[in-house]
């Protein structure tokens, strides 16, 4: 518990640094491309088109409103992968700064997550436009987006903190992540609905937090119903545990990373 307290104290102390670094890294990323902001919109749209092509035309599958169905899972997926991958490299990538200045280490994966969160929110705006385009009505349940958002954010931070720690010591983590994340993508109901899974084994899918998160987003945006509050609460508790484990390690090794990076 004490590392959580320390994290909150350090957050207050480094708030300006966190915000300014997030902003400037976003700015750097924008200035490195010609289209800038447009890529944040184009990127998920392109992916959606690719999967529409594969699923609707080649496999002749996908139900009503399939583009929205895919998009509402694809945007959260992109947010998860990019944040996790960036977090794993976050401490090592800042080694030259860390050799000269003390920074609490957890703010590094946090900054990476905030950068990806900004892009994610852009993706959600695109989704809102797509809803109009596909004549899916807005409902009051859109307000419940923030609940799902908070649960997913804490899940990402939990995984990100732990991987930021591991990323310092295991050189091969990039390769392992590449494979693991691809596997995770296909075992999550991103491109298919849960009803495609035989009922006997369907419970296995619910052990994956993304099943709950995707279903909740689809409920909000597509079905006009409430998110799955019960499972969300469980995954939130799970994420808080991950966050505390991650913070515990990041603070335990706080000034020892600098000896190895």
């Amino acid at each position, binding site marked *: 518990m004490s590392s959580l307290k320390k994290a909150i104290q350090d957050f207050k102390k480094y708030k*300006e*640094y966190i915000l*300014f*670094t997030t902003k*400037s*890294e976003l*700015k*750097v990323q924008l*200035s*490195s491309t010609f289209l800038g902001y447009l890529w944040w919109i184009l990127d998920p749209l392109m992916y959606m088109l690719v999967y529409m092509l594969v699923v609707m035309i080649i496999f002749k599958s996908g139900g009503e409103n399939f583009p929205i169905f895919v998009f509402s899972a694809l945007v959260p997926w992109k947010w998860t992968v990019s944040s996790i991958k960036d977090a794993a490299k976050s401490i090592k990538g800042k080694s*030259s*700064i*860390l*050799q*000269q*200045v*003390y*920074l609490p280490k957890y703010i590094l994966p946090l900054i990476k997550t905030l950068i990806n969160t900004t892009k994610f929110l852009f993706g959600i705006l695109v989704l809102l436009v797509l809803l109009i385009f596909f004549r899916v009505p807005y409902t009051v349940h859109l307000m419940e987006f923030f609940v799902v958002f908070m649960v997913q954010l804490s899940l990402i931070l939990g995984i990100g903190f732990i991987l930021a720690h591991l990323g310092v010591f295991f050189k091969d983590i990039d390769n392992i992540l590449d494979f693991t994340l691809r596997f995770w993508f296909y075992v999550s109901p991103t491109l298919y609905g849960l009803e495609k899974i035989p009922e006997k084994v369907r419970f296995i899918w619910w052990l994956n937090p993304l099943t709950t998160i995707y279903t909740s987003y689809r409920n909000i945006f597509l079905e006009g119903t409430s998110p799955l509050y019960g499972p969300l609460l469980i995954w939130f508790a799970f994420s808080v545990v991950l966050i505390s484990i991650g913070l515990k390690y990041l603070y335990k090794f*706080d*000034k*020892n990373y*600098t*000896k*190895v990076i």
Partner: protein
Amino acid sequence: MNNTAIEVKNLNLKYKFIKSMNMKKELVKMFMRDGETRTKEVWALKDVSFIIEKGSNVGIIGSNGSGKTTLLKTIANIFQPDSGEIQVNQESISLLTLGAGFQPELSGYENIYLNGLTLGFTKKEIDKKLDEIIEFSELGDFIYNPIRTYSSGMKSRLAFSIAIHIEPDILLIDEVLGVGDQSFKDKSTAKLKEIIFQDRTVIMVSHSLSTIEDLCDTVLWLEKGIVKAYGPTEEILEDYKEYMNNLRKKRGN
């Protein structure tokens, strides 16, 4: 009134090196039941203790690999000691660094904020010092251009200007002296000297004995992680020079 700035007690610090895994050797080891581990430990600091008084300028000397920089970084809160204590009685302490966190794509102006925040300034403090920093760097309107367009001299001028405007109570310096072309070098060395001679506690690492002689009133001599001597500059430097001469003669034979 407590007059000590820093009190270091029985400080120990080790580096762990992990030898890369060799499959063949690992297999052989499994069969031979060899207990040898892959980690190798090196003690960089061994039982280091000393007290630094407020306002004094301490130079750390010693041959290569004697733990000077390690000691400085441990005091700067970057390394965790394995045992021992460092008690700092003054408010702010920071290592003089050049350009930590610079983003080449951003303008010099934005990089002042980025670098300043990285070094622990608040935005307000930077606002106050901004004009001074820009003026000292002599960059003029270039300050609004991305620093990837700067020459290396311009970059180090900017970095140096930010660094010397930090003014902590305890300043740690690791071989950073004048930068840039001759005229800026003179200006920056002069400014640095001014900061050092102010009522500030300074700890510096240097290989240049003349610099130490010039700037420090006290010298800490480290050898292989152990404090060999600690005292007034003149005395210690004399012993040190003699020791180095003997060492050189031994090597010569």
